[in-house]
C-alpha cells in the first residue's frame, strides 16, 4: 500500500512543485520586464562601455558587454519586455482567431464546419516558421507584424479544441433551452457555450505563449526582428559571430529563453492538471 500511495503523492507533489517553480520563474521574468526602464533607463541598445567584456569582470556590467560595448544585462532586461509582449499578444491574437473559427465551425456544423476545418488543415500544412518569415518579410519587420504573423500561424490547435468543445456542448439542454427562448446565435455562442468551453482553451493559450516566445526568438535570431528594440533572439543572432571568443553573448540570452519557455510550459502543465482532472492521474 505504502508503495502506491507514495508514488501518487510524489507524482502530484512533483507536478505541483513544477507549476510552483514555473510561476516563481515567470514572476521573476515579469518583474524584470516591469523594472527594466527603472533599473536600466534609456536605450538599452546604446554603447556604454568597452566591447566584449566578460561577465563578472566589471560591477557596472554584471553580465558583460557585447561586440559593440552594449550592456548585456540592460538588453536582457528590456528583451524580457519584448518577449513577454509578443508572446502574450500573439497568443491572444491566435486565441481570438482560433476561438472564432472553432466556435463558428462547432456551432453551425455542416458545410460551415467543413470549410472551417479545411482552412485549419491548410494553415497546418504550411510550415509554420516559413509562413511567419514570409509574412514578416512582406509586411516589414516590426513588433506588430511579428505578433500578427505568429497569431496567424498558431491558431489552428485552438480552433480544433474550441470546435470539439462546441460540438460537445451545442446540443446540451441549457443550449436548447436558450434556443427555445429565442436567443440569437451570437448570444448563445458568446454568452452560453463559450464560458463553458473556455477552461481547456485557456490552458492551450498559455502553452501557445511558450511557442510564441520560441517563434519570436527565431525570427529575431534570423535578423527579421524589430531593429529598434532589444530582443533575446536578436542578441543571440548578433553574438553568433563571436562564438570563438565571447560565447557568453549567445549563452546568456539563450538561457533566458529556455528558462522563460520552461516556466510557461510548467504552468501550462499545472493548469492542465487542475482544469482537466480526468488526466490528473496519468
Amino acid at each position, binding site marked *: 500500500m505504502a508503495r502506491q500511495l507514495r*508514488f501518487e503523492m*510524489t*507524482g502530484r507533489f512533483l507536478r505541483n512543485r*513544477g507549476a510552483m517553480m514555473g510561476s516563481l520563474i515567470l514572476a521573476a521574468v515579469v518583474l524584470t520586464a516591469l523594472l527594466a526602464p527603472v533599473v536600466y533607463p534609456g536605450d538599452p541598445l546604446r554603447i556604454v562601455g568597452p566591447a566584449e567584456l566578460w561577465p563578472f569582470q566589471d560591477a557596472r556590467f554584471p553580465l558583460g558587454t557585447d561586440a559593440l560595448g552594449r550592456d548585456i544585462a540592460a538588453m536582457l532586461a528590456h528583451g524580457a519586455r519584448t518577449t513577454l509582449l509578443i508572446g502574450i499578444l500573439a497568443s491572444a491574437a491566435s486565441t481570438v482567431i482560433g476561438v472564432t473559427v472553432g466556435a463558428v465551425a462547432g456551432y453551425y456544423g455542416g458545410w460551415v464546419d467543413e470549410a472551417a476545418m*479545411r*482552412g485549419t*488543415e*491548410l494553415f*497546418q*500544412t*504550411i*510550415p*509554420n*516558421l*516559413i*509562413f511567419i*518569415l*514570409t*509574412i514578416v*518579410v*512582406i*509586411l*516589414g519587420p516590426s513588433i506588430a507584424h511579428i505578433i500578427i504573423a505568429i497569431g496567424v500561424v498558431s491558431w489552428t490547435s485552438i480552433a480544433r479544441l474550441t470546435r470539439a468543445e462546441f460540438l460537445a456542448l451545442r446540443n446540451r439542454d441549457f443550449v436548447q433551452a436558450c434556443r427555445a427562448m429565442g436567443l440569437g446565435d451570437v448570444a448563445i455562442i458568446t454568452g452560453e457555450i463559450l464560458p463553458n468551453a473556455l477552461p481547456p482553451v485557456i490552458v492551450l493559450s498559455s502553452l501557445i505563449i*511558450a511557442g510564441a516566445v*520560441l517563434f519570436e*526568438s*527565431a525570427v529575431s*535570431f*534570423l*535578423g*527579421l526582428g524589430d531593429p529598434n528594440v532589444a530582443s533575446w*533572439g536578436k542578441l*543571440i543572432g548578433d553574438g*553568433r559571430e563571436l*562564438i*570563438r571568443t565571447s*560565447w557568453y553573448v*549567445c*549563452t546568456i540570452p*539563450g538561457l533566458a*529563453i*529556455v*528558462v522563460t*519557455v*520552461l516556466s510557461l*510550459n*510548467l504552468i501550462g502543465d499545472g493548469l492542465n492538471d487542475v482544469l482537466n482532472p480526468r488526466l490528473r492521474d*496519468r
Partner: protein
Amino acid sequence: MPERPVLRLLRRRLLQLIPLLIGVVVVNFCLIHAAPGSFLDVMTSDNQVTDPALIARLRTTYGLDDPLWLQLLKYIAAVAHLDLGFSYRQNMPVFDAILAHLPATLILMLSGLGLAVLVGVTAGIIAAVKIDTIWDSIVSVLAVVFFATPSFWLGIMLTVLFAVKLRWLPVGDMTTLGADGGTLAQLLDVLRHLVLPALSLGLFYAAIYARVMRSSMLEVFRLDFVRTARAKGLSAARVTLAHVVRNALLPVVTMLGLQMGTVLAGSVVIETVFAWPGIGTLLFDAVSTRDYPMVLGIMVLGSLMVVAANLAIDLCYLWLDPRIEVG
C-alpha cells in the same frame, strides 16, 4: 500489406492534395497583395532591378495588369506548371534553385527526425518501464528542458563546445572544402558535418516523443493483451518490445505526421546556424534580400513536402496498424 487499401489511400490523398495546394497558392496570392505598395515596385526597387525585360517577365508571372481574379487564376496555372517565378538573386528559376538545395535539407530533416525518434522512443520506453524511479525523473526533466530549448541556440552552444572548444567536429557547412578521397571518405566527411545540426534539430522533437511514448506505453501496459503475452510465459523484455512498444508507437507516428511542417521549418533555422547548404540557407538569403518569388516559392514547395510526408506517414500507419480500414 494488402494492395487495395494502399491504392485507395493514395487516390484519396492525391484528391485532397489539389484543393490544399490551391489553398496555399491563394494564401500566397493574398500575401503578395497584402504587401504595402505595389508588389512589383517593392520588388524591383529593393533590388535595383532596372532591366525592362526582367520587369516585363515579372509582370507576366504575376499578371499585374489583369483584374485580381484573373491574376489569381493565372498564378494558380503558373504554379501548376511548376513555374514559381524567377529569382533574380539566384539568377535562375525559383523551382530549379529549390530543387538544387532540396537534397541537403532532406538529409538534415531525415537524420534529425530519425535521431529524434530513436532517442525519444528509447527514452520514453525506459521512463515507462522504470516508472517512478530516478530514470523516469531524469527522462522527464531532460524532456521538459529540451522542449523549452530553441534549436538554433542549442546548435550554437553545441558548436561552442564540440567544434570550438573540443575541436571534435566541424563548425559548419556540409563538406570540408578541398577535401578529397574516395566515396567513403566523402560520406564520412558529410556525416561529421551532420552530427551537430541533426542533434540540434532532433533533441527538441526527441523531448516530445519521449513524453508521448512514455504515456502511451503506460496506457498500453494496462491493456488485456499484455496480460495474455505475459501468460504465454514471455520474458518481460519480450512482452515490452514485441507487444507493448509496437502498439505504443502509434501515437508517436501520428505526432510525427502532424509535425512534418515544423520539422521543415526547424531545419530552416538550423541550416542558417550551420551554413548547411539547403533550403533554409536559401530562404535566409532570400529573406535578407527580399527575394519575394523565392520566399513564396519555398512556402509553396514546403507545403507540398509536408503533404507528401504526411502521405508517407499514412502509409507507414497502414502498415503499423492493421485495424485501419481505408474507406
